[in-house]
Protein backbone atom coordinates (compact mmCIF):
# COMPACT_ATOMS: atom_id res chain seq x y z
CA UNK A 1 0.00 0.00 0.00
CA UNK A 2 1.33 3.40 -0.98
CA UNK A 3 1.87 5.10 2.33
CA UNK A 4 5.63 5.53 2.01
CA UNK A 5 5.60 9.30 2.17
CA UNK A 6 3.65 9.20 5.40
CA UNK A 7 4.91 8.53 8.86
CA UNK A 8 4.96 4.93 9.92
CA UNK A 9 1.64 4.05 11.45
CA UNK A 10 -0.19 6.70 9.48
CA UNK A 11 -3.71 5.77 8.45
CA UNK A 12 -6.00 7.75 6.18
CA UNK A 13 -8.64 7.69 8.89
CA UNK A 14 -6.64 10.11 11.02
CA UNK A 15 -6.67 12.84 8.38
CA UNK A 16 -10.27 12.20 7.47
CA UNK A 17 -11.32 12.38 11.10
CA UNK A 18 -9.39 15.61 11.53
CA UNK A 19 -11.16 17.01 8.53
CA UNK A 20 -14.53 15.95 9.93
CA UNK A 21 -13.70 18.08 12.95
CA UNK A 22 -12.64 21.01 10.84
CA UNK A 23 -15.85 21.10 8.87
CA UNK A 24 -18.01 20.56 11.91
CA UNK A 25 -19.31 17.03 11.45
CA UNK A 26 -21.51 16.37 14.47
CA UNK A 27 -23.29 13.10 13.69
CA UNK A 28 -21.69 9.91 12.44
CA UNK A 29 -24.02 7.06 11.51
CA UNK A 30 -22.71 3.62 10.63
CA UNK A 31 -23.16 -0.10 10.55
CA UNK A 32 -19.91 -1.57 11.91
CA UNK A 33 -17.53 -2.64 9.19
CA UNK A 34 -13.87 -3.56 9.04
CA UNK A 35 -13.10 -1.23 6.12
CA UNK A 36 -14.02 1.86 8.13
CA UNK A 37 -13.26 0.44 11.58
CA UNK A 38 -10.41 2.85 12.36
CA UNK A 39 -12.39 5.86 11.26
CA UNK A 40 -15.34 4.70 13.36
CA UNK A 41 -13.06 4.27 16.38
CA UNK A 42 -11.68 7.78 15.98
CA UNK A 43 -15.15 9.29 15.62
CA UNK A 44 -16.58 7.30 18.50
CA UNK A 45 -13.79 8.52 20.78
CA UNK A 46 -14.43 12.11 19.74
CA UNK A 47 -16.80 13.90 22.07
CA UNK A 48 -17.65 16.57 19.53
CA UNK A 49 -19.42 13.97 17.43
CA UNK A 50 -22.36 11.76 18.13
CA UNK A 51 -21.68 8.28 16.80
CA UNK A 52 -24.76 6.22 16.09
CA UNK A 53 -24.59 2.54 15.33
CA UNK A 54 -27.51 1.42 13.18
CA UNK A 55 -29.33 -1.87 12.66
CA UNK A 56 -29.57 -1.29 8.93
CA UNK A 57 -28.14 1.29 6.59
CA UNK A 58 -31.28 3.05 5.41
CA UNK A 59 -31.73 4.33 8.95
CA UNK A 60 -28.51 6.27 8.44
CA UNK A 61 -29.77 8.03 5.32
CA UNK A 62 -32.89 9.13 7.20
CA UNK A 63 -30.79 10.25 10.16
CA UNK A 64 -28.56 12.35 7.89
CA UNK A 65 -31.67 14.07 6.53
CA UNK A 66 -32.74 14.82 10.10
CA UNK A 67 -29.29 16.04 11.11
CA UNK A 68 -29.25 18.57 8.33
CA UNK A 69 -32.85 19.61 9.05
CA UNK A 70 -31.75 20.21 12.62
CA UNK A 71 -28.80 22.31 11.50
CA UNK A 72 -25.96 19.83 11.91
CA UNK A 73 -23.65 18.15 9.48
CA UNK A 74 -23.35 14.41 9.50
CA UNK A 75 -21.49 11.68 7.73
CA UNK A 76 -22.74 8.24 6.86
CA UNK A 77 -20.37 5.28 6.74
CA UNK A 78 -21.39 2.08 5.03
CA UNK A 79 -20.06 -1.01 3.36
CA UNK A 80 -20.94 -1.39 -0.30
CA UNK A 81 -23.51 -4.08 0.50
CA UNK A 82 -25.38 -1.57 2.62
CA UNK A 83 -25.76 0.74 -0.35
CA UNK A 84 -28.29 -1.72 -1.71
CA UNK A 85 -30.49 -1.09 1.33
CA UNK A 86 -30.54 2.67 0.86
CA UNK A 87 -31.80 3.35 -2.63
CA UNK A 88 -35.38 4.01 -1.63
CA UNK A 89 -34.48 6.15 1.39
CA UNK A 90 -32.17 8.23 -0.79
CA UNK A 91 -35.22 9.74 -2.42
CA UNK A 92 -35.69 11.93 0.69
CA UNK A 93 -32.22 13.32 0.06
CA UNK A 94 -32.78 13.73 -3.64
CA UNK A 95 -36.28 15.18 -3.44
CA UNK A 96 -35.40 17.75 -0.77
CA UNK A 97 -31.87 18.28 -2.10
CA UNK A 98 -30.36 17.62 1.28
CA UNK A 99 -26.56 17.44 1.45
CA UNK A 100 -25.27 13.93 2.06
CA UNK A 101 -21.72 12.81 2.62
CA UNK A 102 -21.32 9.04 2.51
CA UNK A 103 -18.17 6.99 2.73
CA UNK A 104 -18.54 3.57 1.19
CA UNK A 105 -15.97 0.90 1.82
CA UNK A 106 -16.00 -1.57 -1.01
CA UNK A 107 -16.41 -5.33 -1.10
CA UNK A 108 -16.87 -7.54 -4.12
CA UNK A 109 -14.35 -5.55 -6.07
CA UNK A 110 -10.54 -5.58 -5.79
CA UNK A 111 -9.23 -9.04 -4.92
CA UNK A 112 -12.50 -10.27 -3.47
CA UNK A 113 -12.54 -13.95 -2.55
CA UNK A 114 -16.17 -14.36 -1.45
CA UNK A 115 -18.35 -14.80 -4.53
CA UNK A 116 -21.49 -13.65 -2.70
CA UNK A 117 -20.01 -10.20 -2.29
CA UNK A 118 -19.48 -9.71 -6.00
CA UNK A 119 -23.03 -9.02 -7.29
CA UNK A 120 -23.66 -6.13 -4.89
CA UNK A 121 -20.10 -4.85 -5.15
CA UNK A 122 -20.38 -4.66 -8.92
CA UNK A 123 -23.78 -2.98 -8.61
CA UNK A 124 -22.81 -0.42 -5.98
CA UNK A 125 -21.90 2.47 -8.23
CA UNK A 126 -24.83 2.01 -10.60
CA UNK A 127 -27.22 1.75 -7.65
CA UNK A 128 -25.85 4.96 -6.09
CA UNK A 129 -26.14 6.78 -9.38
CA UNK A 130 -29.67 5.49 -9.82
CA UNK A 131 -30.37 6.94 -6.37
CA UNK A 132 -29.12 10.35 -7.49
CA UNK A 133 -25.80 10.24 -5.64
CA UNK A 134 -22.58 11.61 -7.13
CA UNK A 135 -19.82 9.04 -6.92
CA UNK A 136 -16.14 9.77 -6.31
CA UNK A 137 -13.59 6.99 -6.35
CA UNK A 138 -10.38 6.57 -4.47
CA UNK A 139 -8.08 3.58 -4.64
CA UNK A 140 -4.94 4.90 -2.94
CA UNK A 141 -4.81 5.35 0.80
CA UNK A 142 -2.88 8.61 0.46
CA UNK A 143 -5.62 10.08 -1.68
CA UNK A 144 -8.49 9.32 0.68
CA UNK A 145 -8.29 12.52 2.77
CA UNK A 146 -8.19 14.82 -0.24
CA UNK A 147 -11.05 12.95 -1.87
CA UNK A 148 -13.20 13.12 1.25
CA UNK A 149 -12.37 16.81 1.58
CA UNK A 150 -13.48 17.49 -1.99
CA UNK A 151 -16.60 15.40 -1.55
CA UNK A 152 -17.50 17.25 1.63
CA UNK A 153 -17.31 20.54 -0.25
CA UNK A 154 -19.56 19.18 -2.94
CA UNK A 155 -21.96 17.89 -0.32
CA UNK A 156 -22.18 20.76 2.14
CA UNK A 157 -21.26 23.74 -0.01
CA UNK A 158 -22.80 22.70 -3.32
CA UNK A 159 -25.72 20.91 -1.65
CA UNK A 160 -25.23 17.55 -3.26
CA UNK A 161 -25.44 13.90 -2.26
CA UNK A 162 -21.93 12.51 -2.63
CA UNK A 163 -20.45 9.11 -1.94
CA UNK A 164 -16.72 8.47 -1.67
CA UNK A 165 -16.06 4.93 -2.78
CA UNK A 166 -13.03 3.63 -0.92
CA UNK A 167 -11.59 0.78 -2.92
CA UNK A 168 -11.05 -2.65 -1.49
CA UNK A 169 -7.47 -2.14 -2.64
CA UNK A 170 -7.07 0.22 0.31
CA UNK A 171 -8.92 -1.66 3.01
CA UNK A 172 -7.38 -4.96 1.98
CA UNK A 173 -10.41 -6.79 3.33
CA UNK A 174 -12.15 -9.51 1.45
CA UNK A 175 -10.27 -12.55 2.54
CA UNK A 176 -12.67 -14.21 4.91
CA UNK A 177 -16.25 -13.21 5.16
Amino acid at each position, binding site marked *: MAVKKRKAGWHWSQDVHRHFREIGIRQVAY*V*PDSGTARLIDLCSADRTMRSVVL*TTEEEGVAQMAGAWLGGQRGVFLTQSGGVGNCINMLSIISECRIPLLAIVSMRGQWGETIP*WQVPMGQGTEAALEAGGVLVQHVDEAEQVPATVEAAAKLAFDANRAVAVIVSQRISGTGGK*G
Partner: protein
Amino acid sequence: MPAKTKITLDRRKVVARILRDRGDALLVTGLGAPTWDAAAVGDHANNFYLWGGMGGAMMTGLGLALAQPGRRVLVITGDGEMLMGLGGLATVAVQKPANLGICIMDNQRYGETGMQDTHTEFGVDLPAMGRGAGIAETAMVYTSKELDGAIAQLYDARGPVFVNVKVVPKVQPMILPFRDGPSIKHRFRDAVLGET
Protein backbone atom coordinates in the same frame (compact mmCIF):
# COMPACT_ATOMS: atom_id res chain seq x y z
CA MET B 1 -37.66 -15.12 31.68
CA PRO B 2 -34.38 -15.61 33.53
CA ALA B 3 -32.70 -12.56 34.97
CA LYS B 4 -29.62 -11.43 33.12
CA THR B 5 -26.79 -13.65 34.21
CA LYS B 6 -23.22 -14.24 33.25
CA ILE B 7 -22.68 -15.43 29.70
CA THR B 8 -20.78 -18.70 29.65
CA LEU B 9 -22.02 -20.73 26.70
CA ASP B 10 -19.66 -21.51 23.84
CA ARG B 11 -21.28 -21.08 20.45
CA ARG B 12 -19.58 -24.04 18.82
CA LYS B 13 -20.76 -26.36 21.57
CA VAL B 14 -24.26 -24.87 21.47
CA VAL B 15 -24.59 -25.35 17.72
CA ALA B 16 -23.14 -28.87 17.96
CA ARG B 17 -25.63 -29.68 20.69
CA ILE B 18 -28.55 -28.29 18.66
CA LEU B 19 -27.57 -30.12 15.48
CA ARG B 20 -27.03 -33.43 17.29
CA ASP B 21 -30.81 -33.76 17.39
CA ARG B 22 -31.46 -32.50 13.87
CA GLY B 23 -32.80 -35.70 12.33
CA ASP B 24 -34.05 -34.73 8.89
CA ALA B 25 -34.48 -31.07 9.75
CA LEU B 26 -33.46 -28.50 7.15
CA LEU B 27 -31.01 -25.83 8.21
CA VAL B 28 -30.48 -22.29 6.99
CA THR B 29 -27.48 -20.49 8.46
CA GLY B 30 -27.01 -16.73 8.52
CA LEU B 31 -23.84 -15.27 7.08
CA GLY B 32 -20.69 -15.27 9.16
CA ALA B 33 -20.09 -17.23 12.32
CA PRO B 34 -23.33 -19.29 12.31
CA THR B 35 -22.26 -20.65 8.92
CA TRP B 36 -18.81 -21.50 10.30
CA ASP B 37 -20.43 -23.05 13.39
CA ALA B 38 -22.57 -25.34 11.28
CA ALA B 39 -19.60 -26.26 9.11
CA ALA B 40 -17.60 -27.05 12.25
CA VAL B 41 -20.23 -29.60 13.21
CA GLY B 42 -19.86 -31.21 9.80
CA ASP B 43 -21.11 -30.50 6.33
CA HIS B 44 -24.60 -31.74 5.54
CA ALA B 45 -26.65 -31.79 2.37
CA ASN B 46 -29.62 -30.38 4.32
CA ASN B 47 -27.65 -27.23 5.13
CA PHE B 48 -28.16 -24.05 3.17
CA TYR B 49 -25.29 -21.74 4.03
CA LEU B 50 -25.82 -18.05 3.48
CA TRP B 51 -22.66 -16.15 2.71
CA GLY B 52 -24.40 -12.87 2.00
CA GLY B 53 -27.79 -11.17 2.01
CA MET B 54 -27.50 -9.87 5.54
CA GLY B 55 -30.91 -9.71 7.18
CA GLY B 56 -32.44 -12.47 5.09
CA ALA B 57 -31.80 -15.73 6.95
CA MET B 58 -35.06 -15.91 8.89
CA MET B 59 -37.17 -15.00 5.87
CA THR B 60 -35.35 -17.56 3.73
CA GLY B 61 -36.34 -20.02 6.44
CA LEU B 62 -39.95 -18.82 6.25
CA GLY B 63 -40.21 -19.40 2.52
CA LEU B 64 -38.64 -22.82 2.95
CA ALA B 65 -40.93 -23.73 5.85
CA LEU B 66 -44.00 -22.75 3.84
CA ALA B 67 -42.77 -24.81 0.88
CA GLN B 68 -41.92 -27.84 3.04
CA PRO B 69 -44.59 -27.96 5.75
CA GLY B 70 -43.76 -31.59 6.53
CA ARG B 71 -40.15 -30.85 7.44
CA ARG B 72 -38.77 -29.01 10.44
CA VAL B 73 -36.89 -25.95 9.28
CA LEU B 74 -34.25 -24.47 11.52
CA VAL B 75 -32.61 -21.09 11.08
CA ILE B 76 -29.41 -20.43 12.98
CA THR B 77 -28.17 -16.91 12.65
CA GLY B 78 -26.45 -14.14 14.55
CA ASP B 79 -27.77 -11.16 16.45
CA GLY B 80 -26.34 -8.64 13.97
CA GLU B 81 -27.90 -10.45 11.04
CA MET B 82 -31.24 -10.67 12.85
CA LEU B 83 -31.16 -6.97 13.73
CA MET B 84 -30.87 -6.14 10.05
CA GLY B 85 -34.14 -7.91 9.27
CA LEU B 86 -36.29 -7.22 12.32
CA GLY B 87 -39.41 -6.52 10.33
CA GLY B 88 -39.38 -10.18 9.41
CA LEU B 89 -40.36 -11.05 12.98
CA ALA B 90 -43.77 -9.51 12.41
CA THR B 91 -44.11 -11.23 9.06
CA VAL B 92 -43.20 -14.62 10.54
CA ALA B 93 -45.56 -14.09 13.48
CA VAL B 94 -48.42 -13.37 11.13
CA GLN B 95 -47.69 -16.40 8.93
CA LYS B 96 -47.32 -18.73 11.94
CA PRO B 97 -45.29 -21.47 10.22
CA ALA B 98 -45.71 -24.38 12.65
CA ASN B 99 -42.48 -26.01 11.43
CA LEU B 100 -40.07 -23.09 11.74
CA GLY B 101 -37.53 -22.74 14.53
CA ILE B 102 -35.28 -19.69 14.68
CA CYS B 103 -32.22 -19.71 16.87
CA ILE B 104 -30.06 -16.64 17.41
CA MET B 105 -26.45 -17.12 18.46
CA ASP B 106 -26.27 -13.85 20.33
CA ASN B 107 -22.69 -12.87 21.13
CA GLN B 108 -23.70 -9.21 21.21
CA ARG B 109 -21.09 -8.51 18.55
CA TYR B 110 -20.63 -8.10 14.82
CA GLY B 111 -18.15 -10.93 14.51
CA GLU B 112 -17.11 -10.61 10.88
CA THR B 113 -16.21 -6.95 10.95
CA GLY B 114 -14.14 -6.72 14.10
CA MET B 115 -16.31 -7.69 17.09
CA GLN B 116 -18.05 -4.34 17.47
CA ASP B 117 -20.98 -4.25 19.89
CA THR B 118 -24.45 -4.80 18.50
CA HIS B 119 -27.64 -3.37 19.97
CA THR B 120 -28.20 -6.52 22.03
CA GLU B 121 -25.14 -5.53 24.09
CA PHE B 122 -27.15 -2.50 25.19
CA GLY B 123 -30.30 -4.26 26.24
CA VAL B 124 -32.26 -4.85 23.06
CA ASP B 125 -34.14 -8.03 23.87
CA LEU B 126 -34.76 -10.07 20.73
CA PRO B 127 -37.14 -12.68 22.24
CA ALA B 128 -39.21 -9.85 23.74
CA MET B 129 -39.30 -8.26 20.31
CA GLY B 130 -40.43 -11.62 18.95
CA ARG B 131 -43.20 -11.76 21.55
CA GLY B 132 -44.17 -8.20 20.72
CA ALA B 133 -44.37 -9.26 17.10
CA GLY B 134 -46.71 -12.07 18.10
CA ILE B 135 -44.46 -15.13 18.34
CA ALA B 136 -45.73 -17.12 21.31
CA GLU B 137 -42.88 -19.63 21.66
CA THR B 138 -39.76 -17.72 22.66
CA ALA B 139 -36.85 -18.35 24.97
CA MET B 140 -33.81 -16.52 26.27
CA VAL B 141 -31.01 -18.94 27.06
CA TYR B 142 -28.03 -18.36 29.34
CA THR B 143 -27.35 -21.85 30.73
CA SER B 144 -26.98 -25.32 29.31
CA LYS B 145 -30.02 -26.42 31.26
CA GLU B 146 -32.07 -23.70 29.59
CA LEU B 147 -30.54 -24.77 26.30
CA ASP B 148 -31.93 -28.28 26.69
CA GLY B 149 -35.42 -26.87 27.09
CA ALA B 150 -34.95 -24.51 24.17
CA ILE B 151 -33.74 -27.28 21.87
CA ALA B 152 -36.88 -29.27 22.64
CA GLN B 153 -38.85 -26.15 21.74
CA LEU B 154 -36.93 -25.64 18.49
CA TYR B 155 -37.65 -29.15 17.28
CA ASP B 156 -40.97 -30.05 18.85
CA ALA B 157 -42.99 -27.01 19.88
CA ARG B 158 -45.60 -25.64 17.54
CA GLY B 159 -43.79 -22.95 15.56
CA PRO B 160 -42.79 -20.37 14.98
CA VAL B 161 -40.25 -20.75 17.76
CA PHE B 162 -37.76 -18.01 18.50
CA VAL B 163 -34.81 -18.84 20.73
CA ASN B 164 -32.02 -16.45 21.65
CA VAL B 165 -28.87 -18.08 23.04
CA LYS B 166 -26.41 -15.75 24.73
CA VAL B 167 -22.91 -16.94 23.81
CA VAL B 168 -19.49 -15.65 24.78
CA PRO B 169 -17.98 -13.27 22.22
CA LYS B 170 -14.94 -15.40 21.58
CA VAL B 171 -13.42 -15.50 18.12
CA GLN B 172 -13.38 -19.11 16.99
CA PRO B 173 -11.26 -20.74 14.33
CA MET B 174 -12.90 -20.29 10.96
CA ILE B 175 -14.20 -23.49 9.51
CA LEU B 176 -15.51 -22.68 6.10
CA PRO B 177 -17.99 -24.75 4.12
CA PHE B 178 -17.93 -24.48 0.36
CA ARG B 179 -19.13 -21.16 -0.87
CA ASP B 180 -20.25 -21.48 -4.46
CA GLY B 181 -23.89 -20.37 -4.32
CA PRO B 182 -25.27 -22.36 -7.26
CA SER B 183 -23.61 -25.51 -5.89
CA ILE B 184 -25.02 -24.96 -2.39
CA LYS B 185 -28.44 -24.41 -3.90
CA HIS B 186 -28.34 -27.48 -6.13
CA ARG B 187 -27.10 -29.79 -3.43
CA PHE B 188 -29.74 -28.56 -1.02
CA ARG B 189 -32.57 -28.88 -3.51
CA ASP B 190 -31.40 -32.30 -4.60
CA ALA B 191 -31.38 -33.39 -0.97
CA VAL B 192 -34.82 -31.98 -0.24
CA LEU B 193 -36.63 -32.62 -3.49
CA GLY B 194 -34.67 -35.39 -5.14
CA GLU B 195 -32.83 -34.63 -8.38
CA THR B 196 -34.31 -31.43 -9.84
